[in-house]
């Protein structure tokens, strides 16, 4: 049998051993997973970003302007000394500022305006019938938004509208929960199938 399958099977069983209770075998596998994942991500970050976008263009291609992000990146390491820790705030400021600057148009466009325009549909179909689905979506969005409006107490009309919003939220949570269960179950089926067919050779 392939040594890779044996190792993968044993590690899979080690993780599943947590179902019995927290134990040293599980902890060992968990620690290995943490270490290997960080190591993998370190190598990928080095290869895809630092080598490809910084060191090769800077030292081989002579792109001097890359000294700016390089210098900013090095300032990050100031965090490890109390004397220089304030310096690390500057590259963090660049990250936070750029992130905030790009988030304003992106969030306004993709999250707010796109969702609002998709909500407003014709309430009559081409054949003149009432577009029930479109009406449900419109009412649902307005009621759910009213539920999240906390500047006024939820009483009277607002209270009733907000209460209707909770129904829509419950339907949403139920559907989302259903899909979450299905995704976890399909992964579980995949792991059990691996154990039974590839590792233990009990099924084909």
């Amino acid at each position: 049998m392939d040594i890779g399958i044996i190792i993968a099977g044993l590690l899979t069983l080690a993780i599943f051993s947590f179902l019995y209770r927290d134990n040293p075998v599980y902890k060992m596998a968990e620690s290995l997973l943490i270490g290997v994942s960080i190591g993998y991500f370190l190598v990928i970050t080095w290869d895809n970003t630092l080598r490809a976008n910084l060191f090769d263009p800077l030292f081989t291609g002579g792109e001097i302007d890359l000294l700016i992000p390089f210098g900013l990146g090095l300032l990050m390491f100031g965090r490890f000394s109390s004397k220089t820790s304030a310096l690390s705030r500057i590259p963090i400021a660049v990250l936070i500022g750029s992130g905030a600057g790009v988030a304003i148009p992106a969030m306004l466009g993709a999250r707010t305006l796109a969702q609002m325009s998709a909500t407003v549909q014709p309430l009559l179909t081409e054949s003149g019938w009432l577009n029930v689905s479109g009406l449900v979506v419109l009412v649902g969005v307005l009621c759910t938004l009213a539920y999240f409006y906390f500047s006024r107490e939820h009483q009277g009309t607002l209270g009733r509208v907000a209460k209707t919003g909770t129904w829509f939220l419950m339907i949403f949570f139920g559907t989302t929960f259903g899909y979450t269960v299905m995704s976890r179950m399909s992964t579980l089926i995949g792991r059990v199938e691996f154990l039974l067919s590839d590792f233990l050779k009990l099924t084909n």
Partner: protein
Amino acid sequence: MRRRVPQLVCGLFGLLIFTLHFLTSDQAHRTYRLILDDYYQIVFAFALLVGVVSFIRVNLKAVERGKDRPYRIVSLLGLLLMPVLAMGWGIGGDSPFLWVFDNVQVPMQATVFALLAFYVASASFRGFRARSLPATVLLLSALLTLLSRSDLGGFMAEYITPVADWVRYNPSMSARRAILIGIGLGSLTTSLRVILGIERTWLGGGK
């Protein structure tokens, strides 16, 4: 000064990126891409490196103190293994680096993900009781989705699937849309607060 300068840098970069987004000239577009594709990625990569160094320091200290020593050593060895394999044999198709990824990391990650199926099931047994009308609606909605997406509902798929799809694309989608609109507006105001220097929690404590 230690807080003012980073605040100023943050505001300037925020305004610059925001303004560049709306400018249509080639130069503005190039600068926008340069800052976000190159500078941002590189500085972010260094931030991740700081995280790795911090992880190594914390674990080495724990090993010295003897707290969970074997587990900490395994973590550190795992972390060391991947760069050593990558430096020695590369990260291409048949490399040992990819072998460890395929036979160690991927199976364990998938199993941890699968493990949650049991906890989701146990949580639903405890939480999914039709004690009130909204709880019943939640329960029915979840059941409808589960039935429509599993073999269990296969024998009545032609009835259940269209109903489940309608629920998903209409009432469920409307609540999702309202939440997304809320997230959008929340992110917008937080970003504005950060750029204007009203929101300063990212600076952390200290002077």
